[in-house]
């Protein structure tokens, strides 16, 4: 019996879109995976030598980079934030589209120009620091894990850096998008050593690539 392959998928946003893509590549979780009452974190799949784990998006990258999971699906935002050297992102799955943007209160309307220091609330301190550094601004990041939109109105920070898809949440909280840092989509990620030493991982990458290509031809982009 070969060693078990572990496939990490993120909870939330991307998962619903990812399941059909995974199914086309032959990765199908057991029924228990869809059972909302089931509290387990690890699930069998229709293949004997593969299991699925469902963890937070940031943890998908960590599990795969450490080789605790060999393969996974995660947004390119997470990949950029960590810049793990042992991570490959071989396939753009063309799902989970959104963008990472800077937003600030609508009424103030100041820009970062001419400021040498500012405070930003974000889940992405590394990307944020790099983004502002490239503009010659030292950004002091306040790391939050959610509800970034509250930070400006409560005086925690002047700006936020967060994921934006429709912009509705920003609007409701009196914020406007002032610049886009990057476009984001979900990627298949694999552990470097696993890809080089386990032929099954390479075969899975090929399967996802094949179906990403046919998906693109069909124009199945979900924005």
């Amino acid at each position: 019996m070969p060693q078990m392959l572990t496939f990490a998928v993120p909870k939330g946003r991307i998962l619903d879109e990812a399941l059909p893509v995974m199914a086309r590549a032959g990765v199908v979780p057991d029924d228990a995976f869809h059972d909302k009452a089931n509290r387990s974190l690890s699930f069998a799949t229709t293949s004997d030598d593969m299991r699925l784990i469902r963890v937070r998006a940031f943890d998908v990258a960590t599990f795969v980079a450490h080789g605790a999971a060999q393969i996974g699906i995660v947004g390119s935002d997470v990949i950029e934030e960590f810049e793990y050297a042992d991570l490959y992102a071989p396939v753009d799955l063309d799902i989970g589209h959104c963008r990472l943007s800077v937003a600030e209160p609508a009424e103030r309307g100041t820009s970062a120009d001419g400021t040498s220091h500012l405070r930003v609330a974000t889940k992405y301190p590394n990307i944020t620091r790099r983004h502002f550094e490239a503009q010659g601004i030292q950004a002091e990041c306040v790391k939050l894990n959610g509800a970034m939109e509250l930070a400006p109105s409560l005086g925690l920070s002047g700006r936020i850096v967060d994921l934006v898809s429709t912009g509705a949440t920003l609007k409701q909280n009196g914020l406007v998008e002032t610049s886009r840092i990057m476009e984001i989509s979900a990627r298949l990620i694999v552990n470097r050593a696993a890809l080089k030493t386990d032929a099954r991982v390479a075969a899975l990458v090929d399967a996802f690539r094949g179906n990403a290509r046919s998906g693109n031809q069909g124009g199945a982009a979900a924005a």
Partner: protein
Amino acid sequence: MTNPDDLLPEGLEDRLPREAKAVSTAMRQILDVMDAHGYDRVSPPLVEFEKSLAGRMAGGNDGATARRMFRFVDPVSLRMLAVRSDITPQVGRIAATGMAAAARPLRLCYGGEVALIRADQLDPARQRLQLGAELIGNDTVTAAAEMVALAIEALEGAGAKGISVDFTLPDLVDILASKAMPLAPERIADVRRELDTKDAGGLAQVPGGEAYMPLLYATGPFEHAIARLRDVDAGGALASRIAGLRQIAERVADRARLTLDPTERHGFEYQSWFGFTIYADGVRGAVGRGGTYAIGGTGEPATGFSLYIDALIDALQASPAGDTLFLPLGHDRDIAARLRAVGWRTIEALSDSDDAQALGCTHHLVGIDPVAY
């Protein structure tokens, strides 16, 4: 409870007897293999001038590698010192200075501890054992084949199983960008970056990057990947590289599983035409890497590799504890010396109350004979 002051800083650990023994055994075996192949051991100091050490590292004095060294001012010379984070630049310095006049090719090997001021989350160790060999004055296909074979043999000697070697061509993008697949100079870094993460989506967005897409698929088992690389080879720019890789693969094909990833550049910042990474069963991540390069300062060609065996030690089956002979008070010292000479490990009683078995003894000396407990 342990006093918090007695805890070790993050990324540092004690090797207790069993592990320490495994490390020294593996280290000895690796150095013996290198010695048997004519590599002379050199032993550079732990600390030297930062400028010389960093200047021979990837990225030079301002590179990310150089920044991760422990540094302090030398009270004697008032110059900046650094604790080595890599022994390879030190061997380069030796080849360029003390052994500049020695006959080439010069074969040197080394083994010692290196330290980092900050590790990363993936590999939190701040002190590592580095072993390696350098073949100085030659970076040909023959030299590369010798080094790959030597690295495999050294790791086998240390007990590694299921060895797998991944070949790469570190300067591939530079070669192709100059003519076969033209790229604006400012785009080269972008293409490299996307190739590094094998990001097909990102690569397609870089102007001129699309031509490089087939390289992403020229990876995997050696025979398969090299055939694809040959198909990609625009205008024969890579013909000599492909022939070289085949020659190296031929030499070691029966010794290890071989794969090719021509665009791999992680950890190959200063290699020239050829690089390789070694993996072994049960070890997460690489156990070693090497390739061809030019020594900083003199530009002399060289081929070498480094092995980081700490992770390998953890993966090795612990060797069974050997027999130990208890020598009671008043035993015959000549007999004890003779038994040690034929390989016995002995523990001598200090008092009547010593509990031989609790101290790990498997035998005790009765008259002139070791008797099992």
